């Protein structure tokens, strides 16, 4: 499954764009630090289009959970405002259309899988055969059908995460808030959740992900915003953030001192990447020539091609290498 291409993005811009989330200077100030700088979330202005997978990234204490709580109406802004589907934050009309999976979710321990989903379903006014069918569908979807009679108190972390995802989807929401979705899941479980998210996106759902697991976020998100110390320091389409214009990278190993000096002269810049040596060129021919030179000098060519950054690199650059 691919992200919407350029055409889709242009089409969205040409036609009316519906926003799932919009915030303007949304702030939650808890206190001030020793330098007098406000601690909390500061002037967050976000726009998340319907049908997108949006990722909110940031180191611990950067304001991700505060943002989520503000959007869900669990806490109230110091200033600024926000809307979900054009409706005020925290209103019941808004909550009818959203689902929420908190980080490390906690549920009533005395309930089993079916009872738990039934509890949350009835909070939406669901009942009878409609709710029973929905519960069965969700338990199958998150791989908990065989364990449906086990009580929450006996759940592993992964099982809690799975049932948490199911309760978040009980009302078939248009917008899902997922905080650290894959936390506690094994690699297969994490992969299943990723597939689920893509499937939901294909069905037109909007997904708002909060995570610090950047490798998980990169293939999933259409757009990301990076928070640091309560402020948004980077935001944009993942494709745009990762692209490095006109840069080609040659990655080699077994590089002699003499070759290193030669490459340092010819390349735009060079760096050590683990046990390897990377040289960056503005044009393809320069990179190819350097590869031939390196090969002739006995070095091993590990990689040669257009350079893309990883989300991790973007993140580290944005937060100033603090994480």
């Amino acid at each position, binding site marked *: 499954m691919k992200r919407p291409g350029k055409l889709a993005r242009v089409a969205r811009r040409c036609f009316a764009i519906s926003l799932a989330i919009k915030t303007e200077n949304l702030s939650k100030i808890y206190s001030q630090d020793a330098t007098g700088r406000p601690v909390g979330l500061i002037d967050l202005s976000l726009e998340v289009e319907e049908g997108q997978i949006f990722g909110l990234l940031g180191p611990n204490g950067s304001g991700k959970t505060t943002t989520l*709580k503000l959007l*869900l*109406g*669990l*806490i*109230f802004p110091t200033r600024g405002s926000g809307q979900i589907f054009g409706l005020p934050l925290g209103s*019941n009309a808004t*909550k*009818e259309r*959203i*689902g*929420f999976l*908190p980080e490390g*979710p*906690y*549920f*009533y*321990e*005395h*309930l089993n899988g079916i009872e738990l989903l039934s*509890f*949350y379903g*009835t*909070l*939406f*006014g669901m009942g009878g055969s409609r709710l029973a069918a929905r519960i069965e569908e969700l338990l199958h979807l998150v791989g908990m059908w065989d364990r449906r009679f086990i009580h929450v108190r006996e759940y592993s972390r992964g099982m809690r995460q799975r049932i*948490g995802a199911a*309760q978040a989807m009980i*009302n078939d929401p248009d917008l899902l*808030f997922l905080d650290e979705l894959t936390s506690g899941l094994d690699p297969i479980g994490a992969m299943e959740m990723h597939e689920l998210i893509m499937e939901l996106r294909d069905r037109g759902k909007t997904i708002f992900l909060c995570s610090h697991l950047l490798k998980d976020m990169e293939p999933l998100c259409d757009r990301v915003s990076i928070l640091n110390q309560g402020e948004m320091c980077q935001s944009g389409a993942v494709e745009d953030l990762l692209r490095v214009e006109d840069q080609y990278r040659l990655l080699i190993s077994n590089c002699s001192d003499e070759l290193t000096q030669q490459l340092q002269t010819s390349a735009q810049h060079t760096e050590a990447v683990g046990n390897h040596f990377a040289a960056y060129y503005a044009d393809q021919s320069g990179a190819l020539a350097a590869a031939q030179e390196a090969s002739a000098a006995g070095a091993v060519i590990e990689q040669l091609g257009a350079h893309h950054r990883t989300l991790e690199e973007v993140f580290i650059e944005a937060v100033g290498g603090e994480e």
Partner: protein
Amino acid sequence: MMRPILRVARATFHEAWRRRFLNGILLFAILIIGSSWVFAYLQPGAELQMIIDIGLGAIRFFGMLIAVFMGTRLIPDEIERRTIHTILAKPVSRAQFVFGKFLGGAATIAVNLALMGIAFYIVFAIKAPEFAAAKPEDAFIFAAMYSNIAKAIVLALFEIWLVLGIAVVASTLFSWVLSVIFTFVIYFVGQMSDFFQQLSDPGRGASQIAQVLLGALYRVLPHFEIFDIREAILQGTYTPWGTMLQTMGQGAAYLVVVLLIGYLVFNEREV
């Protein structure tokens, strides 16, 4: 409107029965009530009075303890365990949540009191006829006791619901320890509200300030002593249903005000 309230109440009720501490109080209360006839022998000639005093007193006291310790944890536990996040993210208003929590607690207390009441009736049915036979002049008092005890338990239920309401509201305002102390103080001071009225009487030489302060206390505090009809039972006085309804209505009105305050506070509370 009512469905989320009832769902939250039901979950609260089930959660409450999993608290060993509260179950321990109930068990201890039943033990005290069950052995009340033994204590009755400590006061020869007043065995019937002793059974009533200890039995009904234990129901009120232990019921109050359960209300305080459960009520002050109903909402803070949800916040600390973060179960509140997934609930309030659903279309459940804060008013519905507070009322649902209270209703679940109230149902728990009703069952607790019913169990204590059954234990008391069993003891009473076994031992009271024996004590009454030894004192024929109290026969008419004894005859009215069965129905009067039921009335006393119903009034105790309203009283304890009121304590529960105060405990829930206190927990939205203060820390746990402070809310427990606050509820206890209100309960014990509320038992003496008539005393404040007497003290504020200018005829008894109350100063202007004392009149205002004590008068205000009398008006603001719940009048818990009106729920205690043990004296009337012991004197064989028939407690009319009109009086009962009036007392219950008074308790219910006070409870509505208390829960309204709780809602207003919780509506501004960040979770």
